[in-house]
């Protein structure tokens, strides 16, 4: 990346552009890269899902828009048609600034990046509630309230699994959590092995979380599509896969070592050519490992979505409150006890 920037800077400098303009253009190019990465990742997941559905003859689990479009054209014009999708897009694109792509390439590094991720996850819930209230339809209001209740119950189990990982790593900083999954041990040092219960709780709750936020409750025939115009339906369908990919990156950072390779050493360090080239190659390799692992996790999440049963409101609440939440709390207590006994800070 350094070599690319040098050539880019020299080329534009010879054209006579000022330094500030060159830097601004470089940032715009990187911003375009980020949008392209999001689109490519989401589209790859969509392609994987469609090919799997043909292979398994199971049918598509993503929402069909034909019935919903008829409902939307019946309903009156809402005041927050244009605002709701933005409340969904902002967290998904803001999270790209918190992820550690390598141990040096972190846009916004803070000591509480894990909690920031959880905060950004909660913003779409406000969108559902206030979007539901902006209508004057009592059924939609009650349905939006019920979806928020179910989504919050899953969010609690996510919170406890997150906090258990933070106790293992003794920090909320994502970079330090990845560093705690040490490089020397390779795949055996990842947090998935001591903390497998939290991993299972997190994956199952994330599947239902994304489906509820961007799909809706099946028995009430309510979805976020009721609150938006038909033009925006396709972007929301696309956002679901972007959200799944970002949750996959999050799972990889917490449980699968993030940007660390599974072997215990970097492949680019095998042959020492030049200090600068080796260090820049290590950063590139870290970015590759992160996206490779997150793609695998994302594809496995989509594979899992084909098989589980479709649950209604009462069963979802039972599943979250009776099974997931006690498991995550117990796991958190056990990890605290182990950490206390081992004398770790």
């Amino acid at each position, binding site marked *: *990346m*350094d*070599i690319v*920037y*040098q050539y880019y*800077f*020299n080329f534009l*400098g010879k054209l006579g552009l000022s*330094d*500030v303009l060159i*830097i601004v253009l*470089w*940032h*715009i190019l*990187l*911003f375009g890269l*980020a949008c392209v990465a999001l689109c490519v990742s989401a589209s790859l997941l969509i392609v994987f899902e469609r090919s799997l559905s043909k292979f398994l003859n199971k049918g598509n689990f993503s929402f069909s828009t034909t019935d919903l479009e008829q409902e939307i054209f019946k309903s009156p014009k809402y*005041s*927050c048609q*244009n*605002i709701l999708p*933005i409340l969904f*897009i*902002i967290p998904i*694109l*803001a999270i*790209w*600034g918190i992820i550690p792509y390598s141990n*040096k*390439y*972190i*846009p*916004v590094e*803070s*000591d*509480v990046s894990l*909690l*920031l991720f*959880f*905060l950004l996850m*909660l*913003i779409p*819930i*406000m969108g559902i*509630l*206030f979007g539901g*209230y*902006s209508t004057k339809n009592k059924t939609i*209001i*009650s349905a939006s*309230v019920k979806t*928020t*209740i179910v989504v*919050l119950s899953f969010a609690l189990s996510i919170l406890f699994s997150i906090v258990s990982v933070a106790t293992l790593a003794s920090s*909320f900083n994502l970079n330090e959590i990845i560093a705690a999954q040490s490089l020397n041990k390779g795949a055996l040092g990842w947090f998935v092995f001591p903390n497998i219960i939290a991993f299972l709780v997190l994956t199952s709750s994330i599947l239902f979380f994304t489906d509820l936020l961007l799909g809706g409750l099946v028995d009430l025939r309510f979805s976020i599509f009721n609150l938006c115009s038909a033009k925006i339906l396709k972007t929301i369908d696309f956002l679901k896969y972007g959200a799944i990919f970002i949750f996959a990156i999050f799972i990889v950072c917490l449980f699968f070592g993030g940007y660390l390779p599974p072997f215990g050493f970097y492949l680019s360090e095998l042959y020492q050519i030049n*200090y*600068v080239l080796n*260090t*820049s190659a290590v*950063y590139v390799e870290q970015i590759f490992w992160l996206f490779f692992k997150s793609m695998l996790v994302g594809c496995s999440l989509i594979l899992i979505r084909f098989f589980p049963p479709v649950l209604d409101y009462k069963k979802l609440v039972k599943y979250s409150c009776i099974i997931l939440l006690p498991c995550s709390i117990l796991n958190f207590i056990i990890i605290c006890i182990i950490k206390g006994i081992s004398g770790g800070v």
Partner: protein
Amino acid sequence: MDILSVIFFYIFSFLSIVGSIIALNSKSFLNAIMWASCVFVTVGGFYILLNATFNATLQIGVWGILIPIFLAISTSYLDKPEQNKTKFNIKFATPAISIAFLLIFILLGITSNYFERLFEVITGDLGLNLEYSSLAILSENLTLNYGFLIVLFLIVVFLLIVGLNLISVFKDREE
């Protein structure tokens, strides 16, 4: 960067005081709740200015997001004769919340020392010229420059929100 912290302080103070007055005097339940969440998010911004990021996340998460959700859920179980008279109009509350969140992200970028490094690159304090001598210095600068993308994007989103709100306001007036 002291000037930016002063500007942020005054913006947050204005938003919090004005928002609290509007929230207590509004006739619509949900307008009050939206302005209330804006106030609590700005108080979280104060905590970031005071280098208490954990307190800020707690404040924003609990007071800014979760408690407005609980209050909004509770309004569905209560009689609301006033709401039949006044419309729920989120046209002016959402820009306030978006401003608050945007400023908080900018603050987080500041605390990661992004802007200082950017200005150093522009002014040439690190001795950077068109003909580069060492790539290692460049890589150290570029690691933090990516954060500027996030700020640019959030500014664009904020302008979109304000613009769409204004368009909808003018459309309603024509009707």
